[in-house]
């Protein structure tokens, strides 16, 4: 089955981003396709390549990047939300791309299921 995922909160402050990541991992392990993860609202902060969590904590951003690398998951950051919050090409982590809200609508149309994680 083809999943679309929507993430509405940034890393560390809310569990939303963790839950979304663990859901994606389980879906991929079960043989499903995660077609796209769309980052909206504060979710765009998941794409910052400048984050440096403590050594004993999980690295949320690099985890997402690794998912894009290993499973070809399309990580899309909403351009309008990102501009408002200071995420741009210059601080974008590998595997993410910045695009329009149309990518979210398209995910809703093309995916069999769209699952939202937020606050």
């Amino acid at each position: 089955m083809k999943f679309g995922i929507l993430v509405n909160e940034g890393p560390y402050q809310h569990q939303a981003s963790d839950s979304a990541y663990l859901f994606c991992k389980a879906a991929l392990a079960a043989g499903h396709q995660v077609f796209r993860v769309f980052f909206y609202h504060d979710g765009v902060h998941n794409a910052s390549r400048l984050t440096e969590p403590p050594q004993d904590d999980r690295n949320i951003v690099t985890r997402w990047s690794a998912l894009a690398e290993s499973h070809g998951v399309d990580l899309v950051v909403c351009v309008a939300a990102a501009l408002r919050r200071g995420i741009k090409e210059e601080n974008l982590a590998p595997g993410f791309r910045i695009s329009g809200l149309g990518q979210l609508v398209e995910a809703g149309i093309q995916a069999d299921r769209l699952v939202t994680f937020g606050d």
Partner: protein
Amino acid sequence: MSEEGRTKKFMFVNRKAPYGTVYALESLEVVLITAAFDQDVSLAFLDDGVYQLRKGQQTKGIETKNFSPTYRALEGYDIEKLYVEKEAIEARGLSEEDLLVEVTVLDRQALGKLMDEQDVLLSF
């Protein structure tokens, strides 16, 4: 702009008040784009979401953009299915005359039935 000619039923479930958080504003932006993709769009306002439609919003004092006129503009995008939770407006002492736009008032179970009939639910 329809994607492979497919049309799905998209419902936006709005449950948060405006201004305290950005969700109501950024939800509206998705609504407009979804309509541009020629999808079947409806909006449901539950809980504090009904406050998004409150008449008379004046945001000068908080130096923030008043985005409530956008709800009036939805008709121009052929977005005409707006549902409001009956229990929510009653609990808040509101009536339909207090709202910016014409809506269909439904009770919670009727709203739940409509939600069950959608292809995609978006909630922020």
